[in-house]
């Protein structure tokens, strides 16, 4: 089939594409409006949900985590939204308690990281932070229910302050790094290997990573001088232990 071969086809084509374009815009606009409505509806539902379950959100960590996930999925940040503008979603929903909860927790995380820094070089497992905070609460008679997710959110909430606190993964563990100094690749590799048994020896590293003697020695000495490992010189070969394992009740 032949069509639009004459000069007139040119104008016809332009016209057609104009129609298409405006039609496209119309569809897009309708789509956006529809989405916005949906989002509004969803937010309203979420607000209603939050109102009804405010108590659970405050007291139940699993619930809190799931709720926070749901919020971030639709672009509501529980931690920044109530401080950025007054009378916002969260402030209305939960009073300031949700905010206070995370900021108070953040303060305690900072305190704990500071207090343990000498012994662990500023690297501590998220799980340990959680256990220590909960143990302390038990000792002082209160009972708190905090999840690792809460700790992570609390650390996240420190970011705007330029706190130098970050969460890094060493092997399968999530750790809080409270010293701005970055680990070099060899250091991270060794720390990851340490997670398996709690310690490493130079010969284990040489065998498993096929590093030469000097590289192993340098990596271990770097870790020692950053307080990230402790040495035990009473075994057959020096053992380098991660202080992460201090609280884990090692089996002899």
């Amino acid at each position, binding site marked *: 089939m032949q069509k639009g071969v004459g000069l007139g086809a040119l104008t016809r084509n332009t016209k057609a594409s104009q129609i298409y374009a405006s039609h496209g815009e119309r569809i897009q606009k309708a789509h956006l409006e529809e989405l916005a409505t949906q989002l509004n509806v969803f937010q309203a539902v979420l607000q209603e949900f939050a109102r009804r379950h405010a108590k659970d959100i405050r007291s139940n960590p699993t619930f809190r985590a799931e709720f926070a996930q749901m919020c971030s999925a639709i672009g509501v940040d529980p931690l920044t939204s109530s401080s950025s503008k007054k009378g916002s979603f969260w402030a209305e929903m939960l009073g300031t308690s949700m905010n206070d909860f995370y900021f108070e927790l953040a303060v305690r995380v900072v305190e704990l990281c500071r207090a343990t820094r000498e012994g662990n070089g500023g690297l501590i497992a998220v799980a340990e932070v959680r256990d220590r905070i909960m143990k302390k609460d038990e000792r002082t008679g209160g009972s708190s229910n905090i999840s690792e997710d809460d700790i992570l959110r609390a650390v996240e909430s420190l970011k705007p302050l330029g706190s130098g606190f970050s969460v890094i993964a060493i092997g399968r563990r999530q750790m809080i790094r409270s010293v701005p100094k970055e680990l070099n690749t060899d250091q991270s590799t060794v720390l990851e290997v340490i997670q398996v048994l709690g310690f490493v020896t130079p010969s284990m590293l040489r065998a498993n990573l096929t590093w030469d003697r000097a590289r192993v020695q340098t990596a271990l000495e770097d870790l020692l001088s950053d307080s990230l490992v402790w040495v035990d010189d009473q075994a057959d070969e020096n*053992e380098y232990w991660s202080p992460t394992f201090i609280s884990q009740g090692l089996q002899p």
Partner: protein
Amino acid sequence: MSATTSTTPPNIYPDLYNFPPFFTRQPNTTTFAAQLHAWSTFILTYCRHHRLFTLELSTALDSDLFHNKALNRRLKPADAVEVLEAMRKDGLVEWVDGATRSTVLVYWRKPAEWAEVLYRWVESVGQKGSVLTLWELVNGEMTEGEEFHGMHPMVLQSVLAVMVKRGQAQTIGTEIDEMGVKFF
């Protein structure tokens, strides 16, 4: 002995006690500072729990204070001395024999705190105005079960010195075996 009276003994061992490097002097200064602090706290807790007013180094090195038999790890004598020396600087222990360094007095309560404990006892049993021998005071039947029962004479003397200064007591005699004290 008194340790056997409690039904559920509190866990006096810190987590670090089961961490093998705790028994090796850490080469890194920062880590060592944390290690020293942990040892100091542990030694005080241990002595308070067992009501030890003195620590004889050679005995302590073989006891479970400095020797974790399960881990087969122990603190070396020189390292133990370094720990105790650091504690002395903090006023927590005192060498009985300065030069040989074989025994320390352990102040799991400072003399001023002991003075208060003692004075509270004096008031509660109505011993104000009476004269007691030092032996009677810390080893006699009437103070059995008191926290200061069995207190080492040298610790007691530092405590009484505080009380004399506060005008709460006056010591009588000079020979330690025959000394007495009068409380006001």
